[in-house]
């Protein structure tokens, strides 16, 4: 069964508008209506998901707020086989999250329609921040991440999402191990990079890379040797979190100063965004006020960990992302393991409407405490397979 036409049309209507233009109340009504339809559709398509929804403390059909709809924690997408609303023969692509060593990555299945909406969602958002024009696209990563693949990691997905802005694409890192800082990269192709920089000197250029990749593979090695690129019209988008750089005591300010010095651009040309593969088609770039905003086709709810109720402005909590874009997996309403502070529920002085928030890091994993902390069995390791 394909996605009902009224869902398709509802999504398209939201995608066609300027992404931050609809006022909160109107957007809330439209999203609530559409999300209820999507939940009903998902319940029809997946009996296990229906089991989850039916056990939610309140019936979603009666909900008057998006905050009252049943939401899944993102951790459920680590299951195998992946949680899906389409059969395997309709899966066009599987996205995987960038899990750290030893962790299981999330796996997200996309059908053609969801993949198309994903691209459209990201393009709509990025266009609002960097403008609509096509320009040279410098990828601070390896060419492998540009290849069409049925299994795509978070970096590859982020890189490919921006290709429609490109007149030409250049990847400045080589792949394979060569004993440098990250075993995934064999180092910077400096000759190619400098040639491009000379060629693109006066033009608008789009640059994308994971935050720690930009720092460790590009900025640090070049600045250490006093090399700069002289690309004042660049727009540097980066994502992927700060954890690795925080471990190296690299703050946001140090990062921005370093990137700006390398490209010879103003700090306002460097845009950090928050996103995750499970929240397909939605990214949250920082506006010029340093806040993150939500496009028309999505919503963010920040929940108090003690009550799971939405927090007030000025308070911190767990981020729940909501999006109407996916129909191939039940990723409409997802509780993340990340924390944010709500800056306000009114409009931001940057002009964007709706909630503004700031990302404040990953919630530390809860340890099973004290005597309950069992990592191994005592007598018979073959028994109790469920206990780890």
């Amino acid at each position, binding site marked *: 069964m394909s996605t009902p036409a009224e869902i398709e049309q509802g999504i398209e209507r939201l995608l066609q508008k300027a992404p931050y233009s609809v006022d909160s109340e109107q957007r809330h009504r439209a999203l609530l209506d559409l999300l209820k339809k999507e939940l009903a559709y998902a319940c029809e398509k997946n009996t296990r998901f229906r089991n989850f929804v039916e056990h939610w*403390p309140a019936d979603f059909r009666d909900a008057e707020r998006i905050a009252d709809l049943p939401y899944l924690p993102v951790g459920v997408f680590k299951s195998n086989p992946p949680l899906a609303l389409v059969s395997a023969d309709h899966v066009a692509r599987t996205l995987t999250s960038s899990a750290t060593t030893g962790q299981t990555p999330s796996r997200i299945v996309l059908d053609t329609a969801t993949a198309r909406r994903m691209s459209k969602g990201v393009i709509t958002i990025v266009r609002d921040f960097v403008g609509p024009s096509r320009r040279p696209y410098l990828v601070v990563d390896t060419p492998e991440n540009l290849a069409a693949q049925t299994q795509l990691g978070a970096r590859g997905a982020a890189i490919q999402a921006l290709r429609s802005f490109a007149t030409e694409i250049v990847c400045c890192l080589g792949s394979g191990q060569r004993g440098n800082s990250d075993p995934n990269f064999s180092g910077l192709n400096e000759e190619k990079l400098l040639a491009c920089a000379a060629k693109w000197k006066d033009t608008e250029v789009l640059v994308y890379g994971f935050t720690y990749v930009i720092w460790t593979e590009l900025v640090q090695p070049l600045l250490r040797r006093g090399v700069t690129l002289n690309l004042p019209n660049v727009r540097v988008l980066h994502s992927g979190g700060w954890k690795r750089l925080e471990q190296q005591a690299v703050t946001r300010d140090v990062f921005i100063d370093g990137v700006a010095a390398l490209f010879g651009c103003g700090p306002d040309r460097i845009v950090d965004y928050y996103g995750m593969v499970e929240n397909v088609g939605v990214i949250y770039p920082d506006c010029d006020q340093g806040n993150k905003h939500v496009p028309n086709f999505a919503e963010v709810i920040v929940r108090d960990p003690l009550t799971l109720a939405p927090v007030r402005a000025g308070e911190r909590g*767990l981020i729940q992302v909501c999006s109407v874009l996916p129909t191939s997996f039940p990723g409409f309403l997802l509780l993340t*393991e990340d924390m944010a502070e709500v800056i306000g529920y009114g409009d931001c002085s940057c002009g964007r409407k709706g909630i503004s928030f700031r990302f404040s890091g990953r919630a530390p994993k809860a340890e099973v405490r004290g005597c309950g902390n069992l990592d191994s069995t005592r007598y018979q390791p073959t028994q109790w397979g469920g206990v780890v």
Partner: protein
Amino acid sequence: MSELIQVVDSAQEISGAARRLREIGRLKEIHPQVVLDIFEQWAAALDDRELRKVSGMTFLRLWLRRGNLEPLLLRELGSGVLNGGWWEDGRARLRAFPLGVVGHWPAGNVEIQPILSMTCALLGGNCCLVRVPSGLVCTMQRVMEKLEQVDSKGVMTERIFMASFDHSRTDLHESMAQTVDGAIIWGGEEAVTQVRRLQFPHWARILVFGPRVSAGAMDAATWGDRVERASWCRRIARDVWQFDQQACSSPQTLFLERGEGCDPSEFVEDLREAFDEENRHHPRQQIEPGMTSAISLVRASWLLESEKNRALFPASPDWTILLGENADMPKPTQGRTLTVLVVDDLLKAISKFDGTLQTLGLGVADPEREEAIAKLAGRSGVDRIVKLGRMHVFSSPWDGTELIRPMVRLVRHVASQT
């Protein structure tokens, strides 16, 4: 801050304190009756409005009563212990002597544990060097102030040194280990392993409690009894709520034996009411965001795993009941999450226990069946088998071992002239 809890920053402070404690222990014997008297007064002093809010305080007050500790002493150290002298043992005599200085490494998640641990060693006449986890310093300070009030001559407080230092200060842990004659260690696998790795003197006796989990089990005649069921559910809720389900004796799973005409859905509805009620009386004051995520994840994962699985939970992370059919215990989540598993045969489920299970809380109507369950549970590694609602009642033996005797030397004297 009371002098009894010292913020320690150097190994010398610890070794100095241990030296003083050892000297006091050698010079001043303390009669068991004196210990029991002071503990009795301490229990009364702890009946304080503010301290009543401390998790486990009611239990601690009962624990410290003479009526509780005297039988414990008699059972572990023999009938002669209360007169403080020797007692006959055939043609010989026996007398309990303290080991000397006992080091205590309590877990950070059970507020009254430093006191429970310490009292076991004090009852044996030992002096105590206690590492107080940083999260428990304020509570311990208030509890120890009450001891100071009742112990005006300082005969008990002079035998105690409570040290507060960061858990990462290996040098201070090391110093503590090197100066003790015995150690009582509590906590999770990582904490216990780290402390056990320290260089204790070769003569030191080490007593380890943890890591373990616990479960409950009920036969159909008990959980299917519509009259008594609500009362059983209240007992279970109490066991789940105490120590915020983080103690080794906290039930994580409840096995229900299938029975003719007994509906598990009715049972979990009663359990829901009991959990709601318990939550009204003892709401959470705070939670780690990671625990909220873990609770949300286990709720969803359980329901997505099988259409047959059921779950009851409020919109908040306050409590969770997961209902399913399986004899394998799932990984514990804690956070007031109880997995209720319906099984065909309790004995079969218990036979799968592997030694990680510390306490089995029971609700079994037929004494013969309970006898069979207890025997099998014992053989399957369970150390405590108690009635549901009494899973946290700290008593000897605990984790299959006595509490006072391991920190005592029983000296045997055969008179030379006989």
